[in-house]
């Protein structure tokens, strides 16, 4: 095991897969000359050449459309959209073309494409640069959507995504790139399945159902709560579509209480979808309504103090847990 950053983990995944498979190419804005907006792609062009690592014009629809066509023609493109906020300009290609191609063409073609993009707020980037829109894509059949929270998962899921025969949206987080974590030594092959979540911390009193950067907030909250005798189980759902529902249900069968924690907007989003599924299949195991910690239902404000109030922090989770866990536990 080594300790590397989330950014490095992603880069390693691409390097290894590019070395392994000539069909893998990487395209996007500023991935070469600029060195990658978040430096994820740094050095790839020098190593693999500019036929395989391609800076594109500033035009998201053509980036994704070209990647889709190349994938349908048998390549394994990894398209980088600079942030998920710009993916709206490519949403038609993702939803109407790529997600439907195999089905509407009667199984004659597949779209082995990876679209990588960071989401998330918290760095004062303002209303247009702080969104978390994974539920848009996860709503649509025809693709997989994953959101790794650790360097280990970032590398393992990106490698799995590149090898996958279907379109995978790998949604990163702008504030995770510098986060460090353990990954196997170079040369030790591994992938992380795209349809499995993972329990990050065991606990008997409440299940924190979460994903992406919020996993880390939940772990911090759980540490804090442990001091008062409340044991929270942190369930990293990382697979958004297909969702690892049993993982959540098993946890709730044990704890009987759940809080969904996410950074995005509350209404008609990912967390409500997860909650609805847990209710649907785990109703009898629930002793209380599921709590929901989310970003505030507003465009992201710029001002530091407002932004801080707009996105969940550790204490929001702690408060939500205290509200839902009966006093007898927290004694």
């Amino acid at each position, binding site marked *: 095991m080594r300790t590397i950053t989330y950014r490095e983990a992603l880069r390693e995944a691409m390097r290894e897969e590019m070395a392994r498979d000539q069909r893998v190419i990487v395209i996007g804005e500023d991935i070469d000359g600029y060195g990658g907006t978040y430096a994820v792609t740094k050095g790839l062009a020098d190593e693999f050449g500019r036929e395989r690592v391609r800076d594109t014009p500033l035009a998201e629809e053509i980036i994704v*459309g070209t990647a889709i066509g190349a994938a349908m023609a048998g390549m394994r493109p990894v398209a980088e959209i600079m942030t998920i906020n710009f993916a709206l300009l490519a949403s038609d290609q993702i939803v109407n073309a790529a997600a439907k191609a195999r089905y509407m063409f009667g199984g004659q073609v597949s779209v082995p494409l990876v679209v990588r993009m960071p989401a998330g707020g918290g760095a004062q980037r303002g209303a247009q640069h702080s969104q978390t829109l994974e539920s848009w894509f996860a709503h649509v059949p025809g693709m997989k959507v994953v959101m790794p929270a650790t360097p280990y998962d970032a590398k393992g899921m990106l490698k799995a995504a590149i090898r996958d025969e279907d379109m995978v949206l790998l949604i990163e987080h702008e504030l995770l790139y510098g986060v460090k974590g353990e990954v196997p030594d170079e040369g030790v092959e591994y992938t992380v399945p795209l*349809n499995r979540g993972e329990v990050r911390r065991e606990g008997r009193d409440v299940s924190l159902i979460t994903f992406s950067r919020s996993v880390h907030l939940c772990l911090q909250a759980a540490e804090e709560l442990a001091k008062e005798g409340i044991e929270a189980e942190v369930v990293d759902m990382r697979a958004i579509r297909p969702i690892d529902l049993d993982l959540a249900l098993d946890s709730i069968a044990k704890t009987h209480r759940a809080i969904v924690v996410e950074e995005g907007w509350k209404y008609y989003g990912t967390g409500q979808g997860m909650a609805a599924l847990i209710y649907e299949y785990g109703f009898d195991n629930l002793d209380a309504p599921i709590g929901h910690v989310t970003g505030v239902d507003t465009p992201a404000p710029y001002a530091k103090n407002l932004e801080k109030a707009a996105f969940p922090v550790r204490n929001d989770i702690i408060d939500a847990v205290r509200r839902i866990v009966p006093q007898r536990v927290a004694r």
Partner: protein
Amino acid sequence: MAISKSDISLAGLSREELLDLHYRMWLIRRFEEKAGEEYTLGKIGGFLHLYIGQEAVGVGMISQLERKDNVLSSYREHGHALVKGTDPNKLMAELCGKATGVSRGKGGSMHIFDAKNGLLGGYAIVGAQMPIACGYALAAQYNHTNQVTMVFFGDGAVDEGAFHEAMNLAELWKLPMVFVCENNLYSMGMAVQKAWSVNSLEPRAAAYGMEYEKVDGMDLLAVRDTAKRAIDRARNESRPTLIEALTYRFRGHSMADPAAYRSKEEAEQWRLNRDPIQLFANRLRAAGVDDATLQAIDDRATQAAEDAATFADNSPFPDLSELTADIMVDPTGAIAWRRPR
């Protein structure tokens, strides 16, 4: 740029080749007429966009391609498919949503795909096929397959941002492709001069430094000449071309459209004087082909269309298991993956 015209020598083609081209145009015409009937009878649902009137573009362009080459198109793609080699039976079955359809009935009229013959999709979001075509061309360039990618779209599609982004990329990356705009003067009810701030694509091509040719889309041999040059440029020099083929759809936008936005006379003039099949028949006659031969070709096409309809009629609907088949390669890719217990 003047509109290219073929000379009367009939382009150095053999009699068989000429008659085959003629057959292909008739096949499209008769097939589409039959499809229109089946739609009226309720055997075809949804939208149905006929290619009648534009046959010379599809036949002229695609007959110059090789089988390995790629064709992408819009919802008005039956003609392109037939020329590229799609079996008319399977095509009609697809239009009727039958299990024997080229996409097993799951795509329908707007989404024809025939992997074997390189007909790589009818797309029904206007303009969206252009970026995807760039991707096919990029793959061909990267893998040195020497394939040409040809993408068809309408005058309306030019208005979409996708056109702009695709044109720039194709020229910038020197992609081996041919953009074919079938300018049939209308996008639904919108006359092209009300939608385009300039009335030609020539300056649009120049905006990207791309090669451009305008061609009379009713003149089969002229289309073939233009196609040849563009295809050679793509295959031998890896350079894209934008072709503007002037044509006219003789029918409404779709079967639901009475075409009230254009005058009956205008349409009638085109049908009478500019029918690409009649124009080509005239040339064949002038070159010595007799009427009986021409009639036999039409008859054969008519029969093929009939046969296609019969085939579709006699075919079963897809099995209900198809409803959730082939959403993705991975059948566990569906939502709510459950752990094996």
